[in-house]
């Protein structure tokens, strides 16, 4: 999941760089022909927006998995005795003396 996300992120970055270069080239052309530089070709615009969507998607995939914030989720990993040992009710008198005492 994460490597796929990284791959999509890098693809999106490359697509954006391609878009940037295409825009720059197109604007240089317009500048050379003395035309007003007030627009960009439609396909370059679409390419830029597609790269944005791809990058967001790739970043979300590449992020580490989120864990639920409920206490129930944490308790799946632990036992109740670890969390609430009820120390006040702990008893220390047991039959060990009978087994190992003299």
């Amino acid at each position, binding site marked *: 999941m994460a490597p796929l996300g990284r791959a999509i992120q890098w693809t999106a970055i490359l697509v954006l760089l391609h878009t*940037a270069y295409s825009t720059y080239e197109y604007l240089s052309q317009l500048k050379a022909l003395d035309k007003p530089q007030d627009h960009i070709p439609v396909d370059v615009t679409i390419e830029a927006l597609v790269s944005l969507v791809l*990058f*967001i998607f790739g*970043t*979300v995939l590449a*992020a580490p998995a989120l864990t639920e914030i*409920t206490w129930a989720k944490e308790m799946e990993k632990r036992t109740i005795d670890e969390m609430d040992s009820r120390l006040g009710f702990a008893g220390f008198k047991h039959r060990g003396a009978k087994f190992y005492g003299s």
Partner: protein
Amino acid sequence: MEEEKASLIYGPHLQSNLSSVFNIKFLVFIFSGATAGVLGLTNLYGFLLFAFSTVLCAALVALVSCRGAPSKFVGDGKGMSDKSAWTSLLTPGMDNVWGFILTWTLFYGIVHVY
């Protein structure tokens, strides 16, 4: 009552989720600023792209990372609710706004001015 609701949340998970989502948002806004610069957007149109990328990012995080139930993963720590989860997902945060504007001006300068 408030404390009861807050105590049902396991803090460390919430913290790690929030910082993970913040990282996602940070990268997304930097890239979206670059896109705004490359497209040559100015003023209102640039901030429209900002709003669009905020909404798209929040939607994708809620769908993919939070598996459709954002209240179980993010929030403000005072209780799990849809409203606080979506608010937390949709607010970009000041640092991210500046990051957006930074890459916006950078790429606009590189592509359109030079």
